[in-house]
């Protein structure tokens, strides 16, 4: 019995353990990212970019807040791609680590779950990894640097419409719309459908299908696409599903005039594992290393030098999210949550590496920047084909199937 009592006392002590006192002259930032689990691929990239952005500032002596240079203390936790855990960890960072601001995760579901927490405590929150519009505008504390996924789809439609105007594609065009069963996929489909509804003369959607993340076998799904004989193949997918689906697509000998997988396509991993089957796929994104801005060229070089990795859009977004937060901190001149929040709301980051070069947040707290479109070319080359003024090569349309 005595042992029992001792043990229960130990458990109690463990549970009631308080955190030690905190140092005052640092900025404590919390971040919760999916470093393992389903979203780990891009979650890890965000982690790398976030850590690099913080390290760069610390190496330069810290961030200037109210006349004092403060070092940044980053607590980065892994939610294992689990939404409930994600929200709990954000809560833990706020209540136990006492962070001054939170850097949000990647993936709509995870960010959705996280984004209810900041309101409870009045702590500024900024995410670089969720483009679903329904996340924003509910709480004044929540910001996001990822522009709406609907507009990603709209940009692709503008791009296609332009190909029609220049005579490369012939209207009317029919679209096979295949989207993943996530908020990302739903928003993408919404964007395409809204555009088609507004331009009914030129476009039709004879087949629309949703699929589960990590579907085992795409033959049945693509069989329906084949039967529909659409002109264009427009899908929205995670990297895993993009690779699996495009493999099956090639193996089934499907041949649409144009192919896109939403934000996927230019990824190095995809091009490597698909080889020639990834050629001519076009993709839209929140960023491209091909953007012809000097700050982008500098960022590419810096990132490559520090990590050995050529940055993709998620690295850039992760990095720029931290930068936006730190610039706001500096503008706020204080670690008071309300001041940081209003500095974020009024932020105008003019030397941004993101498309358009200027990062601001709309009234809902979400950024709404232009999108880029890239197209894969044979030999592992990628060209920026949209916006027109920044393009590095001519779009090829329709795909020249042999």
């Amino acid at each position, binding site marked *: 019995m005595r042992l029992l009592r001792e043990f229960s006392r130990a458990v109690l002590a463990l549970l009631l353990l*308080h955190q030690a006192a905190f140092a005052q002259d640092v900025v404590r930032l919390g971040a919760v990212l999916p470093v393992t689990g389903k979203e780990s691929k891009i979650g890890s990239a965000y982690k790398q970019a976030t850590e690099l952005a913080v390290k760069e500032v610390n190496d330069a002596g810290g961030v200037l807040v109210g006349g004092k240079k403060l070092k940044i203390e980053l607590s980065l936790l892994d939610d294992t791609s689990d*939404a409930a*855990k994600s929200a709990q960890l954000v809560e833990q960072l706020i209540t136990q680590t006492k962070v001054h601001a939170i850097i949000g995760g990647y993936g709509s579901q995870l960010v959705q779950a996280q984004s209810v927490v900041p309101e409870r405590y009045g702590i500024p929150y900024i995410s670089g990894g969720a483009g679903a519009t329904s996340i924003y505008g509910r709480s004044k504390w929540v910001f996001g640097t990822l522009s709406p996924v609907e507009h990603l789809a709209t940009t692709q439609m503008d791009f296609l419409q332009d190909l029609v105007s220049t005579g490369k594609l012939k209207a009317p065009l029919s679209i096979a719309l295949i989207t993943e069963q996530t908020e990302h996929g739903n928003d993408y489909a919404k964007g395409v459908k809204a555009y088609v509804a507004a331009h009914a003369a030129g476009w039709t959607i004879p087949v629309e299908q949703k699929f589960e993340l990590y579907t085992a076998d795409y033959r049945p799904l693509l069989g329906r696409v084949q039967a529909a004989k659409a002109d264009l193949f427009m899908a929205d997918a995670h990297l895993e599903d993009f690779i699996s689906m495009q493999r099956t697509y090639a193996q089934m000998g499907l041949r649409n005039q144009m192919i896109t997988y939403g934000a996927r396509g230019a990824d190095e991993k995809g091009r490597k594992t698909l080889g020639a089957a990834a050629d001519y796929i076009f993709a839209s994104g929140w960023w491209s290393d091909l953007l012809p801005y000097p700050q982008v060229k500098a960022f590419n070089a810096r990132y490559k030098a520090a990590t050995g990795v050529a940055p993709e859009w998620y690295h850039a977004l992760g990095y720029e999210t931290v930068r936006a937060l730190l610039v706001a901190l500096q503008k706020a001149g204080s670690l008071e949550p309300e001041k940081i929040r209003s500095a974020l709301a009024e932020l105008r980051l003019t030397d941004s590496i993101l498309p358009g070069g200027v990062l601001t947040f709309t009234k809902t707290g979400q950024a709404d920047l232009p999108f880029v479109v890239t197209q894969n070319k044979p030999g592992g080359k990628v060209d920026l084909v949209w916006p027109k003024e920044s393009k590095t090569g001519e779009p090829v349309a329709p795909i020249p199937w042999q």
Partner: protein
Amino acid sequence: MKGARAWMAVLAATLLLAPLLAERGTLNDLWNVAFAVVLASAWNLLGGFAGQISLGYSAFVGIGAYTTVLLADAGWNPWLTLPVAAALAVLFSVVVGLPTFRLRGPYFSIATIGVGEAVRVIASGMEFTGGSSGLRMPSADFHFLSNYYGMAVLALLTVGVMAYVRGQAFGLALSAIRQDIDAAEALGIPSTRYKLLAHALSAALVGTAGGLFAMNFQYISPGSVFDFRLSLSIVLMPIVGGIGTLVGPVLGAVLFSYLQIKLLASPTLRDSYLFIYGGLLMLVMLFEPHGMVGLWERLVQLGRRAGRPVAGAPRGG
């Protein structure tokens, strides 16, 4: 048993008095502990007492959570949605139980994996569940302390119900079913009806916990409440703690929620949580099928009759 009562007193005191002493962060952790206690203890009624290992319990969490959010969205007071959440979970438990309880042992377990996955896939494909985008609670209704007490009371209620059931004819019948279902039937125990009852009772508790989960997290999605990993940890907690015992699931729940909270914060251990879960499960199965409770009793016995070999693992708790 005296030991069990002492444990329960510790649990009750910790949960109920903590808000006076502890700060919000600790209370969040305790909320998790209470949630885990409900899931583990309620599962143990069917899985431990009656020996029917279900690998699909996240379905009840999900049904409870969705019921609460959908009704709250329609203007209900969230607390009033809880009985409905419990009722729908019970209904589902019967719908699933009627066919699957004809199966025995591992066949039942496999069928429950299938049911769990089917429910998740359907919830992500339906319009009214918000599909894979999930649903949010109306944001005005958040009061942490009442959520906390809600879950704490539910946890104590669950453990109390289990303690009560164990001593009743119902509990004895369940244990007869676990030991030898044919013999139990021969003795006139209507096994299917008792299994359905146990399933329903634990579903009601888990469904209510699901509703409280939604109230506390304010956002739910198939990926969070219908996830296979949730079903997995619901099974692991009572097994590691001591399946079929009263204290075991509670111990397992405390251990797991502590592990989850602390492991994730530690970068070195974070990458090995599956090693830890899987390894614990294997160790328990290989060496001590009665988990921590069994180990404890073995130690106690060793202490008592030092020098004499222990014959077989002791049961109960």
